[in-house]
């Protein structure tokens, strides 16, 4: 369980000026990097992979992260040669790409109950940003440019707050009511003509459906604000309720969370944004639409266009295309039946697992996730302890509304048997002694990591490490 850094295996200094086709003053002097052969690299990365827990390793019940199994075939379609086109190709020569994008826009619109969709945002947070920028542009277009607040529930994802701030808004934090849902009185108090938007996820991060959603929508709309849907928890509602029908004006889709594209250890993702008709003219450019007339073989033709009042680009090109191909393939595989079954089993699994564990689980009834409380134990310790039982732990210490939160979302891909295994790991952790908790994990590639040391003395590159080491040597 140890693999040297590439640079520790080899570091070769190569001078640039030999045979340089450029004048010396336009080039660097040298480059010093590892020079290794394919067999050495294959082993290096194989060994590194062996020190990673992936979705094929076992259950991965990260609340609000929705770690679903990633169907293998979606990789194959994204790897097709015909998928490998340059973004500056003429529209006429990439009708296939445009058709796929158009069909995906359509699929997503139907699933979300939205009127128009952009596929450009390269991640969920980028989708949020598009939503907020669209809201800004809309208000501005209406001459409504005094709105400088965005309201965000206290239990919301950190990105909601950060996105609103990036969009130039003051963030108004909304407390929860006793049941863990939006406090309507607090909302009433927070809303004003300064309100640009309310950002909401539903079910919320406690797994609870915002039962008053219709009322909330009315309240926000009454003050001229827009209602934003954070798609993080859409997997819980597939085929059973749609943000558009609940009164949301704009939403993003997390294709990783809802449509099983691989998380890749932190991306690439995609965060398509859907809006109601009224907001469609503000979406990023370019989007795809059908072109009047038909192609040579009677096929519909597609073209790119800029919406009338487009906010412009939020990505240099068209976003994370390869991720979108996988999204499309997944939806085309599941169809109505599969999507409906996904939310059914996701919710069943969460409820079943919540029932099987000893930790207290406040609030309810749950949809796709629940937040247990580790009580007297430190939730992060519990998580590390669970690693030793061969499973991945839940998300911890958030939302803060539940003390020592263990935010758990099994998703639909886990079998009853796996959930039982997971419940067993929860039980073992809950029965662990302080000592066991504080020393965990012990069966992992490395033991518990000192976070303070990492932050206090940042060593962020091999070069920095070298400097540190030589510093120590000379000391």
């Amino acid at each position, binding site marked *: 369980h140890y*693999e040297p850094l590439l640079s520790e295996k080899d570091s070769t200094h190569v001078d640039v000026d030999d045979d340089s*086709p450029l004048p010396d003053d336009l080039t660097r002097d040298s*480059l010093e990097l590892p020079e290794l052969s394919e067999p050495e690299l*294959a082993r290096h990365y194989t060994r590194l*992979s062996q020190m990673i827990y992936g979705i094929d390793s076992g259950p991965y019940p990260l609340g609000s992260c929705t770690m679903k199994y990633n169907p293998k075939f979606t990789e194959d379609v994204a790897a097709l040669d015909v998928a490998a086109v340059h973004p500056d190709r003429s529209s006429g020569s990439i009708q296939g790409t445009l058709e796929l994008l158009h069909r995906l826009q359509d699929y997503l619109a139907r*699933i979300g109950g939205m009127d128009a969709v952009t596929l450009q945002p390269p991640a*969920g947070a980028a989708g949020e940003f598009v939503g907020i920028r669209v809201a800004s542009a809309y208000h501005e277009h209406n001459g409504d440019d005094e709105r400088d607040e965005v309201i965000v529930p206290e239990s919301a994802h950190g990105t909601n707050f950060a996105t609103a701030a990036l969009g130039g808004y003051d963030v108004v934090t909304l407390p929860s009511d006793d049941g863990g849902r939006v406090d309507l009185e607090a909302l009433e108090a927070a809303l004003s003509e300064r309100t640009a938007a309310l950002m909401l996820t539903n079910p919320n991060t406690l797994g609870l459906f915002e039962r008053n959603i219709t009322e909330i929508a009315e309240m926000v709309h009454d003050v001229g604000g827009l209602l934003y849907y954070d798609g993080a928890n859409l997997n819980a509602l597939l085929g059973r309720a749609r943000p558009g029908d609940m009164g949301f004006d704009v939403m993003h889709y997390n294709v990783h969370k809802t449509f099983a594209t691989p998380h890749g250890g932190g991306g690439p993702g995609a965060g398509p944004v859907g809006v109601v008709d009224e907001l469609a003219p503000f979406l990023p450019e370019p989007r795809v639409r059908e072109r009047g007339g038909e192609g040579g073989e009677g096929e519909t033709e597609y073209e790119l266009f800029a919406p009338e009042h487009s906010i412009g680009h939020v990505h240099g090109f068209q976003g994370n295309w390869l991720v979108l191909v996988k999204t499309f393939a997944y939806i085309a595989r599941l169809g109505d039946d599969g*999507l409906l079954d996904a939310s059914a089993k996701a919710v069943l699994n969460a409820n079943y697992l919540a029932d099987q564990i000893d930790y207290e689980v406040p609030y309810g009834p749950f949809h796709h996730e629940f937040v247990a409380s580790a009580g007297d134990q430190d939730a992060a310790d519990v998580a590390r302890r669970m690693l030793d039982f061969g499973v991945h732990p839940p998300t911890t210490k958030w939302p803060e509304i539940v003390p020592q939160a263990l935010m758990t979302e099994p998703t639909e891909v886990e079998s009853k048997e796996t959930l039982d295994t997971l419940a067993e790991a929860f039980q073992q952790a809950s029965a662990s002694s302080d000592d066991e908790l504080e020393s965990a994990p012990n069966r992992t590639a490395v033991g518990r990591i000192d976070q303070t040391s990492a932050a206090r003395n940042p060593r962020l590159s*091999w070069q920095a490490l070298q400097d540190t080491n030589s510093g120590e040597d000379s000391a």
Partner: protein
Amino acid sequence: MNGTRTTGSPYAPHTDDDTAAMLEAVDADSVDDLFDIPPAVWFDDEFGIDARTEREARQLVRQTLERNDDLVELLGRGHYGYYVPSLVDHLADRSEFLTSYTQYQPEVSQGFLQALFEYQSLLVELTGLEVANCSMYDAATALGEAATLADRVRDTSGHRVLVPDLLLEGRRSTLENYVAGTDLEVETYPTDDSTVDVEALTDTIDEEVVLCYVENPTVRGTIEERLAEIGDLAHEHDALYVLGSDPVALSLLQRPADVGADVVVGDASVLGLPTSYGMGLGLFATRESYLRQVPGRLVGVSEDATDRRAFTLTLQTREQHIRRERATSNICTNQAWVALRTAMHAASLGPSGLIDLAKRDVTRAQDLAARVDDLVGVTAPVDDRHHIREFVVQVDQPAQAVADDLEEHGFAVHVVGEHELQVCVAGASDEQIDAFVEAFTEVVR
């Protein structure tokens, strides 16, 4: 069941018995009972999306994409189709890499953290700067983040962000969206022969400028010759000097640290990704002094309980999940897996291979320019500068007509002016370039 089953989710493993037992455990009659959705918003309709077998779904995607014409792409302008060694696909596709989550549990993520640390180290060597994060979305968003960084770190009340007039629309527009929530305003400065017009820049720059952005190479493939001078100019006015580049160019061209760059942005996926309709990997490196203001994820070294070296995400207090509205960025999921691929590709090339690749980008562009320049009614390169990878070609005929004709011959090039095309050699084989010259000769005849 897989491959044939089309009812229900093929990825939900429940047997009917399981479902029944679980419902009983949670005391529910049916799964529908578990949904706490008011009747008013219950969705009673269907999406109208057919379920398909795996084979049918594959076939649908393939048949749809086969509508794309099979063209040899001599395209660049920010997105390149270098050959990616097979090693990259095979190793990056290992499910431990592909399907894992962000490394919040570092003890079971050491392999990915180490790979990202190696990626950061690669960029530190390439840029000469001390800190590189482990990715932004792409070059455009990285530039946007550089601007918000400038907004945070500059004390001045300035609001001007200077970018070249040649800047790609997608980048400029993205930048404008990123600064829309600030007081910053994006302005352009002129170029001369497709490189910075330093005199004009000198005229326009003042203390109101917080960021001066230069790309090397430029979008037209030209190589900047006065980078250090521009850096001095920026610093004299207390502006952040931001350079745009990429790992291949950086392997050969002047090292950003040597010309005074404060931040380097760009698209690192020139290595590691095949042509992918513009999908990218935002490179972001900067000076150590701005460390606490860096957007995105950083992997650092620490120690475990037995004092062994261990890797972890660090300085997370900059990030949205901790700092919320005071975070350095709203970025969460980034392009980690692409960064892995880029690191793999770079490692596969090694320093010799990287330098060779960049040198060949210079000589092959030069050679192709000379070959088309020989044709009557064609001038190449248009810009009197050194080039890497791509260059602009002037044609007597309308450029769009020439490009359309070339497409008929199976080649895609950029149209960048009424009589200007742009051609890129990066991803093309020698045979393809020969065939292109033949087709081009015929088209402009």
